[in-house]
């Protein structure tokens, strides 16, 4: 038990750090596997001469920031307008299922919606557009990456929303909100004054993770982003796949630049945070000084300003609610196109629905589907199970040692947890690949499971952590005084009581693993294929019905485990009213 935290850190952080290290050395010309031992800036120089590099970087920054800013704005607007109300609860029910759907499935669905031959064009054709054939916008259809941003927003809004909800409950901010309203602040003002500052503190790291993902992900970039200029992650992947081994050093320096890119983006975001905070403080001071000097506006002006304020408030309420609902609707539409495609037999343009249906695809392609699906499940189950055991042991050790640990060391641990979510996946996985290549170890299933576990573990830890720590410590103390040792208590008391959070965390782990694309592709080097890698490989130009089938499996597999995580505790504890309602998450 004592060894759980160090072992977890070792299994979890060492690959990340080694990966980063292993990508930095080739970037400066040191690559023993290729007999390159001399430091040189040649790779970086070659990279800098590559055409489109700057435009690719700028495009990446622009779309990454847009996606993050829009997602944050929607989530904060929803909370500012509806905090503590029923709207939040109903949005929760609509947004939570979207969280379990992988990015790739959403991106593919969005593609089905908005492609030139997609569903939106179909429903307005030929009546409005007059198109009887798909329009030929194939050459750079979306130069601004709007679809890329849209797909990310649809996925990140549910994530940030649920994080904010959890943070709010942990801070007990609904009560703070009511107290502040009691002092005469409007709900919105109360939100900005008393809730947002602490809420933001808790959301900072998840937001950085969203920013990093938006800047570096491969799955959405491949499915939806335009080719010219390519997003940087795609640019990196192309270099990485280059046949010439020397190009690997250039790819390594590109990976290094990607890491820099993320660090710079986070630095920019942090500076913006500080700036906004300063300006906000200044504005508050100004207001106070005005009040103090009696330079209040006269009543007529006040009246106007209060009615404008009212209109503005209503307008933000409506737009916040509308954007939240729009995210849900687009998400649901995108996902519902997946099964439709997979069961379509004949679906000519511009029909809004397939003319003929059939389940032939599922029967004919079953062998093609089953194998990647099996690997996906195997990776997901193994990685989540390992991560769950490690997290549970760490949390148990933490609660046993609670008194010896200071808050500060816990904060540090949280920071470490977010490391693999903030460091670009492509970069450190590439580093791991170089490392394995150098020590001549071929990638096998265990390494792949391990790689999946690195990404699964932070989510499981975060999801389980609060529940584990919130469990009334006196249960344990009572059992101790009744004569039970710590280990027996863990199995007889802690785990049974926390069954639901444990299973929920496990299902979350499955969802994360199923969605992973980069580890399978970068480490597997084509030898392993999961439903996610297959779906994305087929996305450009492949059979839409097969893409629909793979993406559908991606969407429903995690859902299945979430349903199990809800059902099992209900069945096991059906006679225990308290346990049935025992859900924090």
């Amino acid at each position, binding site marked *: 038990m004592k060894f759980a935290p160090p072992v977890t850190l070792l299994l979890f952080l060492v690959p990340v750090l080694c990966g980063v290290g292993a990508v930095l050395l080739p970037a400066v010309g040191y690559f023993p596997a290729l007999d390159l031992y001399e430091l040189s800036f040649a790779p970086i120089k070659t990279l800098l001469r590559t055409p489109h590099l700057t435009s690719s970087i700028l495009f990446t920054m622009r779309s990454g920031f847009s996606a993050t800013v829009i997602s944050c704005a929607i989530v904060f607007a929803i909370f500012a307008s509806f905090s503590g109300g029923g709207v939040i609860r109903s949005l929760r029910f609509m947004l939570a299922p979207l969280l379990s759907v992988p990015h790739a499935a959403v991106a593919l669905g969005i593609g089905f919606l908005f492609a030139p031959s997609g569903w939106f064009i179909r429903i307005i054709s030929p009546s409005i557009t007059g198109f009887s054939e798909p329009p030929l916008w194939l050459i750079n259809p979306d130069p601004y990456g709007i679809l890329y941003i849209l797909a990310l927003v649809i996925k990140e809004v549910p994530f940030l929303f649920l994080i904010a909800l959890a943070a709010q409950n942990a801070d007990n901010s609904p009560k703070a909100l009511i107290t502040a309203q009691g002092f005469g602040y409007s709900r919105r003002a109360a939100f900005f004054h008393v809730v947002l500052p602490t809420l933001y503190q808790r959301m900072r790291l998840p937001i950085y993770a969203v920013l990093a993902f938006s800047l570096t992900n491969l799955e959405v970039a491949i499915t939806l982003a335009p080719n010219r200029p390519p997003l940087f992650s795609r640019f990196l992947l192309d270099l990485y796949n280059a046949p010439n081994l020397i190009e690997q050093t250039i790819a390594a320096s590109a990976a290094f630049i990607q890491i820099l890119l993320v660090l710079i983006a986070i630095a920019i975001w942090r500076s913006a945070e500080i700036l906004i905070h300063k300006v906000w403080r200044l504005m508050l001071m100004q207001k106070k000084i005005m009040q103090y000097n009696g330079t209040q506006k006269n009543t007529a002006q006040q009246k106007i300003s209060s009615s404008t304020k009212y209109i503005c408030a209503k307008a933000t309420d409506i737009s916040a609610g509308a954007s939240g609902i729009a995210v849900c609707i687009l998400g649901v539409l995108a996902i519902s196109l997946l099964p439709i495609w997979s069961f379509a037999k004949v679906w000519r343009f511009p029909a809004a629905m397939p003319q003929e249906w059939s389940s032939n695809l599922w029967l004919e392609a079953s062998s093609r589907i089953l194998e990647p699906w099996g690997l996906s499940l195997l990776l997901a189950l193994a990685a989540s199970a390992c991560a769950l055991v490690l997290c549970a042991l760490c949390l148990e050790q933490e609660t046993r040692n609670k008194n010896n640990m200071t808050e500060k060391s816990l904060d540090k641990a949280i920071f470490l947890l977010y490391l693999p979510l903030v460091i670009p996946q492509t970069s450190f996985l590439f580093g791991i690949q170089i490392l394995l290549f150098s020590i001549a170890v071929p990638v096998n299933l265990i390494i792949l499971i391990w790689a999946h576990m690195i990404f699964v573990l932070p989510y499981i830890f975060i999801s389980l952590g609060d529940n584990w720590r919130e469990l009334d410590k006196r249960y344990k103390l009572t059992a101790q005084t009744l*004569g039970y*040792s710590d280990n027996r208590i863990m199995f007889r008391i802690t785990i049974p009581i926390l069954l639901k959070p444990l299973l929920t965390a496990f299902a979350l782990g499955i969802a994360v693993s199923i969605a992973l694309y980069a580890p399978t592709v970068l480490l597997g080097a084509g030898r392993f294929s999961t439903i996610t890698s297959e779906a994305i490989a087929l996305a450009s130009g492949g059979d839409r019905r097969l893409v629909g089938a793979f993406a559908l499996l991606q969407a429903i597999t995690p859902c299945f485990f979430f349903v199990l995580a809800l059902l099992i505790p209900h069945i096991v504890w059906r006679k225990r009213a*308290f346990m049935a309602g025992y859900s924090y998450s």
Partner: protein
Amino acid sequence: MLGVSISIDGNRLVQNLNLRVASGEIVVFMGASGSGKSSFLSYLCGTLPPSLQGSGRIIIDGDDITSLPVHMRRIGLLFQDDLLFPHMSVGENLAFALRARTTKKNKEAIRKSVTLALQQADLAGFAERDPSSLSGGQKARVSVMRCLLAQPRVLLLDEPFSRLDIPLRKNFRKFVFRKVIEQRVPTILVTHDPADAQASGGKKFSMERLAIEKLPLGEK
């Protein structure tokens, strides 16, 4: 107890306390919140947080338990909440206390003791019930029985009556004190309610006094 002292950052909460509690005797510690009542109890349990410094020996029936871990001390602890394990039935909660130390106790014997304990608590036939379906008073009684079934050598009561409303509290208090005397357990009651102290009929100390005074050894 011999020379028990507890301090936080150099501030004494309990100063060199020497105390002997006889079987079936109830000693009451009174004090407002923050006076060190809970720290005192956690020192006896062996769960004093490291931010506090405690010293002094705890001896039960001649055994020094000061350095034993919590689960070996055989101390019974009751809180103001019943803390029945929500995933076990009432009967399982009681059986849980019996299974702790006995490795090979047969099922029949456990079932019998559970039935007997429920009868004594006026809860006959409640074994299969879900704890959350019980009333506050019923839960509190189950909690006491669970604690006593483990046959503690010392019983610590941490404001066990303060959650119950007045009429219920009186009855429950009587029930607990009767059990303590029946089972002849040395008991320490910590409370802020003078009525509890009155009803116990035992010796009373105020936490404020403990912080400064040195009480003589062997006081009975």
